[in-house]
């Protein structure tokens, strides 16, 4: 590994170094905000380093990691997600009165794990990246310890993630036993050569991946964990942790030409359509905001899986665009819940935010932008993203899946609009025994307000002027 490889690896190195610096800041500096500064600045520098190291691409860094434009695009998305979560978490934890330090160390580490996943070229880095991400998430979900719900969510995630990781690792061992290599690109290109053990291994790997992406039928943990975790952490679980695994799946499944393999493509399609329907129908029944968004995220990953079942060059474009739009919207939506919380109390139910527009028109506007983007309404990023998925599906003549997607978009629209309608309703708080949100107390922090504004602007700009992002994504092909 020479200097050029180290430069190509710079973003991951910088994030890891920031994690160590944040740890030292926690240990030696009395100020609560020092680690938060370290993590925010660390993310910004790591993001800038993407452009510095850009000329060194593409480059394989040891057999474990591949640093190319594709990896860099997803690493960039993950770093931005980490930055947004770090900025949202600072005021949120200040309101809760919990320590900042360890959270920012764990956040940096989990971003390093996600970045490793997005760039991994080998079972070993896949495994290690996933475990770094999971182990950090266990503690991040249960971070607010006095909150029993968070502790419960953390324990649930610990048990279920361990079981799914066991499936994944056993699957890797079986694939290795079958084909004798752990190189992901090698397995994707050369196939498994009819080895039964490798085929069983791939099925087990799919179980592990399905859990991480919260696809049906491995989605049971999602609502509980999303509801129990502090909102900034939920935003991270919903965005970066899924995005990293999705990047890996998109790259290698598409490279393997899984859309042409018949049986496996049908399995992916079935899982995708089941995720859409179950996610959307259960979201329709929810009165609880965080659970509603949890079910909607199951449906969104269902849409994304459709891309992998379709395959080809279009899958990379649509996947990158959809994920960017989804990141901005889902982080924004959970960010608003975090901004509206007072201490440990978050606006959990729909009734809690009824009439929000009359208290805080800006936040209501941001929330509407995020939800409309998730629903896929024109002029938002979500519309362009969904448009790409549908046009890819039509170009591959996948009529039934496309029709399913359109039906699901309509179901989705129903519950997103229900939330927006509630936000713009005339306030009748006395009737509902609802909580007093941060907006009424006039305690929306400037930082979270700023992050939410930026995310809303991104959502709208990507919806109006898609070439901005498309040009970057086209470099990754």
């Amino acid at each position, binding site marked *: 590994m020479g200097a050029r490889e180290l430069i190509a690896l710079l973003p991951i190195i910088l994030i890891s170094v920031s994690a160590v610096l944040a740890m030292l800041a926690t240990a030696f500096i009395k100020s609560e905000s020092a680690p938060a500064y370290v993590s925010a600045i660390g993310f910004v520098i790591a993001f800038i380093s993407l452009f510095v190291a850009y000329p060194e691409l593409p480059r394989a860094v040891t057999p474990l990691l591949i640093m190319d434009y594709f990896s860099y695009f997803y690493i960039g998305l993950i770093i931005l997600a980490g930055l947004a979560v770090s900025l949202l978490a600072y005021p949120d934890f200040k309101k*809760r009165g919990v320590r900042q330090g360890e959270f920012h*160390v*764990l956040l940096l*580490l989990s971003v390093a*794990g996600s970045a*490793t996943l997005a760039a991994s070229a080998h079972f070993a880095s896949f495994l290690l990246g996933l475990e*770094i991400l999971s182990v950090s998430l266990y503690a991040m979900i249960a971070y607010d310890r006095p909150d029993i719900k968070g502790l419960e969510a953390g324990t649930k995630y610990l048990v279920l993630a361990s079981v799914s990781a066991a499936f994944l690792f056993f699957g890797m061992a079986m694939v290795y036993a079958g084909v004798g290599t752990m190189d992901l690109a090698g397995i994707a290109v050369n196939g498994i050569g009819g080895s039964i053990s490798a085929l069983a291994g791939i099925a087990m790997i799919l179980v592990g991946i399905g859990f991480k992406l919260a696809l049906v039928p491995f989605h049971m943990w999602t609502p509980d964990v999303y509801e129990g975790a502090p909102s900034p952490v939920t935003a991270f679980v919903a965005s970066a942790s899924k995005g990293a695994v999705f990047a890996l799946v998109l790259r290698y499944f598409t490279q393997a030409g899984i859309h042409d393999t018949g049986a496996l493509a049908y399995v992916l399609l079935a899982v995708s359509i089941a995720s859409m329907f179950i996610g959307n129908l259960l979201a329709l029944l929810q009165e609880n905001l965080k659970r509603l968004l949890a079910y909607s995220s199951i449906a969104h990953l269902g849409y994304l899986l459709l891309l992998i079942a379709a395959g080809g060059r279009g899958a990379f474009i649509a996947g990158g665009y959809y994920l960017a739009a989804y990141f901005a919207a889902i982080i924004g939506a959970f960010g608003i819940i975090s901004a509206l919380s*007072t*201490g440990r109390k978050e606006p959990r139910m729909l009734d809690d935010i009824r009439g929000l527009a009359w208290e805080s028109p800006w936040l209501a506007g941001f929330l509407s932008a995020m939800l409309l983007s998730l629903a896929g309404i024109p002029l938002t990023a979500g519309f362009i993203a969904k448009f790409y998925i549908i046009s890819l599906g039509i170009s591959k003549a996948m009529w039934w899946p496309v029709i399913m997607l359109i039906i699901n978009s309509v179901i989705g629209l129903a519950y997103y609009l229900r939330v927006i309608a509630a936000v713009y309703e005339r306030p009748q708080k006395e009737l509902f025994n609802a909580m007093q949100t941060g907006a009424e107390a006039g305690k929306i922090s400037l930082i979270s307000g700023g992050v939410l504004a930026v995310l809303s602007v991104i959502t709208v700009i990507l919806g109006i002027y898609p070439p901005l992002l498309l040009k970057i994504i086209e470099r990754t092909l």
Partner: protein
Amino acid sequence: MTTSFYLAAAVALASTLMVITRARIIHALLYFIISLFSVSIMFFAAGAPFAAALEVIIYAGAIMVLFLFIIMILNLGAEAAAQERQWLTPGIWLGPSMLALILIADLAFLISRGGGYANGLYAVTVQPKDVGIALYGPYLLGVELASLLLLAGLIGALHLARRNVPEEGEDGTGIN
């Protein structure tokens, strides 16, 4: 050597099955130790003596001792001691001892056949030197990533186990 491998594997399955079906944690632990030893013998028979030694040192050694410490810390008081005496009846040793005997016979057989691993399941024997070269050659980043993983575990455990979490009222007025 294939027979030795499958014999150890059978012991591993049997003992692990016993681990998850025991109602008392001490009984489960006895079987768990056997399970770890049998995995070690599997490594040995498959031509990886270094991995076999690590399995014994790290799992059967360090990690089992940690388990025992936890149980010691949890079971305080004379009542617990009486209960423990009741649990540790001679009969309970029988199962794990039988399985351990099978493993010892297996290991003795392997060693009697010219050092065991020298003619293992596979033609290649993985020596400590090979492991070191792999770890600090192509898998260098793996070692670094594993250190990040351990850091994440350490920081997470530190935070979750911290004794004096500043308790807040339900209104969550917070510090500062």
